[in-house]
């Protein structure tokens, strides 16, 4: 199972990274989200994989490592806040700059208006 788990983490990392390198904001946000899944799984697995382990005291002899779980739990919530921040930034950038490219301007030669931002206040 460990090999499959590691494969999935690697695959999700690769997919997330590829999307992060795209030029438009939305795929980048999706990529970051995917990447954060992979990171959370990675961190979580540093406590090793255990099936039917106990997390509540007194349930079983074999306990799952609680420390990575606690860290990943907050990481998930913070990750949501960061995703939200990035996505709102992307929306704001589109409304201010008139396009959704990560550089704030459409690349030249793509047949799209490549004007930079209209100055706001």
């Amino acid at each position: 199972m460990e090999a499959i788990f590691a494969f999935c983490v690697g695959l999700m990392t690769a997919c997330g990274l590829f999307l992060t390198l795209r030029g438009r904001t939305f795929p980048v946000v999706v990529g970051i989200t995917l990447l954060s899944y992979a990171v959370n799984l990675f961190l979580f697995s540093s406590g090793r994989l255990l099936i039917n382990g106990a997390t509540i005291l007194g349930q079983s002899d074999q306990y799952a490592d609680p420390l990575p779980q606690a860290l990943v739990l907050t990481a998930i919530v913070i990750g949501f806040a960061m995703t939200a921040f990035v996505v709102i930034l992307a929306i704001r950038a589109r409304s201010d700059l008139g396009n959704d490219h990560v550089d704030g301007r459409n690349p030249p030669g793509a047949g799209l208006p490549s004007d930079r931002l209209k100055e706001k206040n």
Partner: protein
Amino acid sequence: MSLFWILLLPLLGTVVPLLTDRFGRTACAFATAALPALALVLVLLQVPAVFDGQSVVATLPWIPLLGLELSVHLDGLALLFAILVLGIGLLIILYARYYLSDKDSMGLFYAYLILFMTAMLGIVVSHNILQMWVFWEMTSVSSFLLISFWNHNSDARKGARMAMTVTGLGGLALLAGVIMIGNIVGSYDLTAVLSSGDLLREHAAYPVIVILVLLGAFTKSAQFPFHFWLPYAMAAPTPVSAYLHSATMVKAGIFLMARFYPVLSGTELWFVIVSLTGLTTLLIGAYTALFKHDLKGLLAYSTVSHLGLITLLLGMGSDMAAVAAVFHIINHAIFKASLFMAAGIIDHETGTRDMRRLSGLWKYMPYTATLAMVAAASMAGVPLLNGFLSKEMFFAETLDQSSLGSLSWMIPVLATVGTAFSVAYSLRFIHDVFFGGEPEELPKQPHEPPRYMRLPIDILVALCLLVGIWPALLIGNLLAVAAGAVVGGDLPDYGLYIWHGFNLPLLMSALAMTGGAYVYFNREKLFTFQAQFPEANANLIFDKSVKWVMKHCARFIDWFENGSLQRYAFLLILLALVLLGLPLIDLNTTAGLRPQIPVDAVMLSGAALLALSSLATVIWHRKRLIALLMLSVVGLIVSLAFALFSAPDLALTQLSVEVVTIILLLLALFFLPQSTPKESSPSRVARDLTIAAIFGGIIGTINYAIITRPLDSISDFFLDNAKSGGGGTNVVNVILVDFRGFDTLGEITVLGIAALGIYKLIARMGLFKPTSDDDGRPWTEDKHPMMLSVISQGLLPLALLVSAYIFLRGHNLPGGGFIAGLVTSIAIIQQYIAHGVDWLKDRLKLDYQKVIGSGLLIATLTGLGSWAFGYPFLTSWYDYWTWPVIGEFEVASAIAFDLGVYLTVVGATMLILANLGQHTTTERARETEHQ
């Protein structure tokens, strides 16, 4: 503790002139002088202890683990410099009171001056070499401010910039040297450094350290080839020139060499570099000074030359030479400061400093002329004055060294030549200015300066004479302790007498005198000779090189930082790839010894689904809605994976975050294009795919390597103590709210800040509201389907109940503030979706910002509460109570903390989603108060 006051008093004194400026010039000057004077008294109080040879050190630890501390000391060398800095500083304050005109801001000038004084004092009394470097940089900055004090003047600005650049670059070199010394010695403490001389000298990096430290010293002390900045710094007001550029700052480099003399000198490398640089500087400075028509220009080159002389002495390697160096530091400070002040008076009272126009001033200002002549005679090395004594010692030392082997005879000869020029320019200073006929067309009618403007010169010139006649009596002890600190051991026997009998040094002096007089009276020929050479303008060369550097930097930055985020991300990932990949090559076996979990069909199909949906997210990433749906599948399987691998808390969190995230991203799609244009070139796609695949492979490998190895975790501590210490059986929750509660507090704070940031981003957003989707289809008319409304309304109490249950049981069973908060948020969001923002606004009057605020407040107060009982921040407390009906119930302070977490999570999530959501309604929500 009084040692710290030596440094602290002038530092406080920096603001005094700014506050007292309005009470008039004299009051301002006196107030400014008060604190440095007090500091001088404190220094003098330490004199007996220093003379006794006690070590006077005071240390305040700052980060002891890193060896960082605030450490101040007074040894002989520091004592000498502290007296010079404070004593001459006080005289300069008095002098500047009369020198500055009404147009100059006196408060500002004094503030800069005292700031510089503090910095300079900091250099000399620092017992930690890193701390010394900080003050070293402070002198560069404050001298920049002082040189450019008349900043309407372009020369002043340029001179300040040049001084800053040259000394700043030297400062960087010095920092590198200091850090290397610290690394080798293992401490930045001066005592430790000074006792590691052999360690440093035998270290392989010794040549590098010597060169770096000397770069710092040579740039600061204007040694060839870095001497060019000092003449340009003369654009500063004359009190600054007298203080910084003759008595103190330029001596900082000399001080540095003297400070490290016990550990860095004593090798061939040191002798060759230091003595040759000193000799070259001595000759060039003395020769050039003769041709300067500007009084201050002459004095500036003369300073360069005398600094060269001291450097040469420090490079000779004999203990006696070090004594002579220290002696000349004192003498030069005294006579050069007085000469600068005299030059300032002449400038002030005649309106010019050009020696071609000045002459015959003796008639108009005989008193000042007498003072200036005595000081200039001391500079030339005339007997009965202090300059003579140290010059004799210098001559004696040049005769007594052999660093150049059989060419060593050249050093005394060249020293005599240099001194002859020194005599010549001193003669020029006296004769051109005070004699030789009537002055021509002076801008002002010359006359004597105000009484107290002359007082500082009176004092210094008196010192020239007194030290010259009774040297041993006046400064014998001070010189001995200071030189002792330089040599780092016992001093040789020497006598400070005026008369050593007829000997070779006296002959050299006599030769220099006659030679200098001869050169001066035949100067016309020399001037004609010198006029053949085009004068190199260091300013132009400097400007040119600065422009060259700027141009190439700009070109490099244009190439490297082209503004493309994709490129930066790519480069960063590439770097991470190299850093992660290289160590893996050294790892021989990937799989560890831990027994692995057998695979079954359910797991396999889950993994397959995860892999396929990840890939589908990528493949269909242009169709954004579909990509989003695929992403949600990934998220769901991740939460299932958490559930499978014994992490119910994580599964619950992931599941609820997943819901919120997908709703948010769907909302975002409303404001963003529904599809992504195809614009990456095939080669770009191939490149990104390759790097992503390699990276994924590396991460997967690392992950596999980690999870197949046995675990040695610190978690046993948490498992053992969760119940007894934290009063809960859900260890994950106990870690969050108790063991690592401080982390959690930080994290919910970040959450709150992120939400507020998002709120501000949304609040001022220009409306971008599509009326239809990308294919031109209008939005549905049926915005709030009845089915949805009815069902969701019924679900609300149920959902809230579940969330309350999850919250309350969190300490002992899976759940807790984070999860409960997310569940509550989802329940409310559902109402928003089903009924719209306006419907809910009338029914749910919750200010989400206040919810966040109260959440953080509760969590913080819970933490602070433990202080009331005398425990550290966030210590938790719990007890069991028997309640009617319910039975035994646990009350823990952690539950209050968890309530804070809960409120923050609800507030943050809702603030984000509700604010974004209200923009999707046809009527834009009423103009918010933030517009």
